[in-house]
């Protein structure tokens, strides 16, 4: 005897046959089937092997909480593992395979693990592999040896490595009322809210709306509940203010009533429709939410409760009523509550023999006795199942008299022949989203369940979610919730008439039958009741620790069926009531979410690219580009056959010999304007700007509030109330925010406006002995001689018909000028300058040569202004005005910031004439075997063509005092050790005669 399709019944389309394969074998099913129901209809009982012990496993459930029947779905080269077969809708061409078995599902070599159960208990890995090494079989090395084999044996499906060609998309949605769950409560809520004119979204993770109405076999208003559901959905479909989202799992509840949902748009199709993504990620902002997510039935914990053929009672009811599939021919039930009797009736009606109902409770209500009689089932009140028999399918079970007051088993066991055992351990409301939204769940002793907490966000619960398990209550609560969520008045209304099997919603407080054998709590992670008790014996008292030690509830199903039984067993071991043990907080996601849907269209390199106006020119003229933050800048303009070093040495040398030009458009530029602009700059910079004459520029230094150096740059006074501040490329955004903060929050009385104009200006720096001649050759409208354009002077003129602003300042140490023009004219002006420079031997140079010349001059950049250095450390104390307070002035003289052993900026010259490395340590004595005794580190290094030596800038402890002495570089990672001379950071032309001359 085995499971089979019934002759009639179910909500599948028997006229439509669908072909698919499972583990290579061809099967057929009907439209409306899940992979689970289609395989069950064909008599399949074995669906997977368990995580640790490789025990054969069958279907436990019919829904999203399925822990056993996990499959991998293959689409071409792409594999998606660990999907519950209960959630896979079959379609023509579906290819699914089972997991965690070798060589095949039926003959699995690792099934021997079952025999070693005592060894593979909770904490096995810690106990075996952690801690000190005693002999060969312990410790981390042993783990590294074993890991490969263990990972192969334990676990779930394996992830694929093929690139996923599917398309995913994101959607933002806004609504007045989001209804989660489309059972009777959810449908009523959606309709009531829609009637109020609210914008309603209704989401359900199943393909069919209706929830329990699809399989309860109850009637609503005289018609089958499923028909009522279909009619209600049809009404909602026709309305403009309602959006229906089937196959949509609402998986996260975040702040401000923001919910995340995953819509499986085309997984159920052979090919996605035109323009359809595979999955769609919904970010839904709802004014209020109706949670009508129902409840999960709990398994009972007893020996052999994981054998294929042991199933939850409602799941069997669902397979029979919704899919027209009988999970067995001779069915026994084991329950602690009334709801299982409804399943007995359903299966009897569908054509199975119900051979026995074992009820933990000694006293049964007359209604239940009547239902059992109707199902022609023999009742065993006050009995429990103590064992199951069979291999890859159930063949029988053993019953024994059970005393629920003390858990004792009395008398002899008696055997019952059955091919399917249905169990019901009560119901747990699906409170995951409410728990995510904030407050703690509350234990209800009557329901033996955690009920939803009081709302901390704008949501209203309805139906089984609140612990109201009857359809009539669901309809009433759903309507009330929908009205309230839409802001409507609660009015008395005639509710639909429900005809249902009676039943008491409260189960007997029994979770486990203690008898010999493995009793599973967490089916997916193979955690047994004994593991929970072991954790208790080993001193784990907190439920959070229990979870981590045993991994209970940490599998892909996140303990949907195991959570409450697990902590009930823990509570018993601790001798405490369940509410004192508490429950773990649920966290998103409710069910696994595809990473693709979260990324949607955002994949690849997501950083924006910032390109200077002359970018294309650089590329066309042989530049190798380098990414500096978001910017792309020329690194070198290499000639054929040149190395990077050869190129930058040539560029730097040519600049010092004749002239060079570099793109400086990336410098941060901020317009600081207004009557108080000069006063503001005096507060922001360490030095004075109010004394700066119009038409002149000045180098400035900023500190942070804590007195450490922040940024430097030149600021040009273009008018009495008009300054153009430049910042380092990297800090442009930070400086802007810094200025805005002080203007907005600290000194709102200052009449100053700051505007970021970085992208408005193109800039070129042209320097070298011939630079002035080149400018003279191409600039019109102004002279550029020393009198008109002195050091730090600014003039306006034209180049090639374009207005330009020229400031004479120098970063390279040569006579140099920065030429600015409107960004749109950047390339035009750049080309004119390059053309004018040709007779003078002008070269274009990149970041490498720029860096080389700045190291030769000893200028600081972000490598030295690293957030730990002060102005004094960088020998910029001459810039600290004593005439005025400025940002950082009060904190910069703290004891630690003026100590004599601080890291100070110095220059280094390699005495062995070998290249130095950035980040290398400086030591007094080299110890290659045991590197130690760092007195500082290199911040920037290069080969200096001006000096003909390998040089570096470094931060060295009490560096100024060490000038003229020797030390060593110690760079064990790159095996570079060698002597260096500590010198001033001003290597080249320290008097500045070249730039002033």
């Amino acid at each position, binding site marked *: 005897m085995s499971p089979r399709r019934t002759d009639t019944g179910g909500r599948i389309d028997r006229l439509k046959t669908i072909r698919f394969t499972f583990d290579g074998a061809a099967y057929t099913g009907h439209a409306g089937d899940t992979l689970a129901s289609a395989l069950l209809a064909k008599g399949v009982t074995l669906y997977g092997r368990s995580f640790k012990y490789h025990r054969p496993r069958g279907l436990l459930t019919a829904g999203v909480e399925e822990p056993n029947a996990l499959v991998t779905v293959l689409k071409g080269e792409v594999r998606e593992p660990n999907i519950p077969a209960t959630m896979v809708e079959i379609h023509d061409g579906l290819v699914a395979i089972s997991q965690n078995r070798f060589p095949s599902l039926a003959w699995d070599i690792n099934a021997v693990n079952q025999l070693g159960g005592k060894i593979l208990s909770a904490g096995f890995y810690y106990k075996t592999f952690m801690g000190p090494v005693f002999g060969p079989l312990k410790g981390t090395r042993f783990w590294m040896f074993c890991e490969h084999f263990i990972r192969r044996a334990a676990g779930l499906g394996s992830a694929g490595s093929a690139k996923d060609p599917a398309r995913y998309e994101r959607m933002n949605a806004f609504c007045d009322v989001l209804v989660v769950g489309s059972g009777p409560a959810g449908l009523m809520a959606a309709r009531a809210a829609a009637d109020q004119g609210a914008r309603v979204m209704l989401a359900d993770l199943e393909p069919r709306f209706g929830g329990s109405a699809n399989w309860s076999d109850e009637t609503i208003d005289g018609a089958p509940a499923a028909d009522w559901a279909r009619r209600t959905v049809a009404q909602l479909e026709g309305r403009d203010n309602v959006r229906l989202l089937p196959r949509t799992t609402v998986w996260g509840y975040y702040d401000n009533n923001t919910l995340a949902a995953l819509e499986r748009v085309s997984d159920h199709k052979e090919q996605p429709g035109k323009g359809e993504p595979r999955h769609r990620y919904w970010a839904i902002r709802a004014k209020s939410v109706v949670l009508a997510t129902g409840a999960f039935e709990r398994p009972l914990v007893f020996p052999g409760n994981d054998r294929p053929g042991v199933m939850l009672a409602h799941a069997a009811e669902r397979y029979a009523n919704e899919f027209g599939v009988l999970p067995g021919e001779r069915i026994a039930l084991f329950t602690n509550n009334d709801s299982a009797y409804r399943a007995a009736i359903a299966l009897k009606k569908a054509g199975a023999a119900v051979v026995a109902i074992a009820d933990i409770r000694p006293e049964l209500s007359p209604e239940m006795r009547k239902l059992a009689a109707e199902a022609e089932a023999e009742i065993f009140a006050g009995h429990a199942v103590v064992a199951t028999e069979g291999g890859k399918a159930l063949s029988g079970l053993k019953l024994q008299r059970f005393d629920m007051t003390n858990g004792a088993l009395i008398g002899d066991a008696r055997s019952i022949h059955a091919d399917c055992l249905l169990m019901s351990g009560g119901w747990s409301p699906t409170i995951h989203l409410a728990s995510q939204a904030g407050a703690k769940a509350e234990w209800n002793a009557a329901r033996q369940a955690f009920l939803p907490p009081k709302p901390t966000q704008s949501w209203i619960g309805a139906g089984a979610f609140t612990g109201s398990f009857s359809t009539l209550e669901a309809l009433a609560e759903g309507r009330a919730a929908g009205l309230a969520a839409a802001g409507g008045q609660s009015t008395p209304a005639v509710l639909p008439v429900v005809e249902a099997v009676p039943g008491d919603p409260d189960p007997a407080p029994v979770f486990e039958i203690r008898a010999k054998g493995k009793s599973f709590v967490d089916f997916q992670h193979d955690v047994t009741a004994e593991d929970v008790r072991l954790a208790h014996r080993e001193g784990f008292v907190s439920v959070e620790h229990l979870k981590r030690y045993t991994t209970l509830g940490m599998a892909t199903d996140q303990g949907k069926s195991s959570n409450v039984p697990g902590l009930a067993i823990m509570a018993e071991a601790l001798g405490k009531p369940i509410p004192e043990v508490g429950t773990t907080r649920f966290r998103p996601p409710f069910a696994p979410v595809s990473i693709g849907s979260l990324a949607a269209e955002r994949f690849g390199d997501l950083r924006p690219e910032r390109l200077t106006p002359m970018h294309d020119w650089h590329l066309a003229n042989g530049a190798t580009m380098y990414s500096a933050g978001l910017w792309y800048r020329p690194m070198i303009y290499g000639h054929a056959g040149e190395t990077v070093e050869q190129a930058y040495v040539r560029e730097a040398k040519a600049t010092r010999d004749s002239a060079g030009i570099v793109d400086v458009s990336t410098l941060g530029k901020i317009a600081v304007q207004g009557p108080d602009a000069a006063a503001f700059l005096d507060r922001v910079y360490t030095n004075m700007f109010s004394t700066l004459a119009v038409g002149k520029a000045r180098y400035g230094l900023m500190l942070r509030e*804590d007195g450490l150096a922040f940024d430097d740059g030149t600021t040009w006074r273009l008018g009495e109330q008009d300054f153009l501040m430049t910042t380092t490329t990297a800090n442009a955004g930070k400086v802007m925010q810094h200025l805005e903060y002080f203007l907005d*929050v600290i000194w709102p009385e200052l009449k100053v406006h700051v505007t970021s104009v970085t992208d408005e200006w193109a800039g070129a720096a042209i320097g070298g002995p011939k630079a002035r001649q080149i400018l003279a050759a191409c600039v019109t409208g102004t002279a550029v001689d020393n009198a008109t354009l002195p050091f730090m002077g600014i003039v306006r003129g034209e180049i090639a018909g374009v207005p330009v602003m020229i400031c004479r300042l120098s970063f390279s140490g040569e006579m140099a000028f920065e030429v600015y023009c409107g960004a749109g004219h950047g390339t035009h002006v750049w080309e004119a300058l390059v053309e004018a420079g040709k007779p003078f031997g002008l070269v274009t140079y990149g970041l490498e040569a720029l860096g080389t010349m700045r190291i030769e001059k000893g200028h600081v950049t972000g490598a030295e202004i690293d957030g730990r250095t002060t102005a004094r450390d960088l020998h910029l104390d001459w810039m600290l005005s004593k005439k005025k*307070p400025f940002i950082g002035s*009060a*904190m910069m003289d703290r004891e630690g910031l003026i100590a004599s052993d601080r890291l100070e900026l110095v220059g280094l010259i390699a005495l062995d004439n070998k290249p130095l490395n950035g980040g290398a340590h400086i030591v007094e004595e080299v110890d290659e075997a045991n590197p130690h005794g760092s007195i500082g580190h290199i911040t920037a290094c290069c080969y200096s063509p001006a000096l003909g030596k390998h040089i570096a800038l470094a931060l060295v402890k009490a560096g100024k005092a060490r000038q003229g002495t020797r030390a060593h570089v110690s760079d064990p990672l790159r095996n570079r050790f060698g002597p260096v001379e500590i010198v001033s950071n001003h290597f080249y032309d320290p008097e500045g005669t070249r730039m002033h001359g």
Partner: protein
Amino acid sequence: MLITCPYCGPRDVIEFTYQGDGNRERPDPASQNFEAWNAYVYDRLNPAGDHNEIWQHSGGCRTHLRVVRNTLTHEISSVAFAHGGHGSAARRKAEDKS
């Protein structure tokens, strides 16, 4: 989390930059009171409950806002322009409570 910018209306938190504890009081720029400066630069309230914060609508109008946010629930009870210095009144209130 949504912050209702007085200029732009309710916007997602992704548009904003946290600019620090709004209870700090910046001493007079010329002040040599080291204790006061130290408190301003380093001392922060870390309340479990309502917190006075400065946020900048950096992805929008770039205005700085004074936001009172509950650190336990992320509930925002007030948003105002930050013009006018740090929230000395709010700080005193917080200290009175403790």
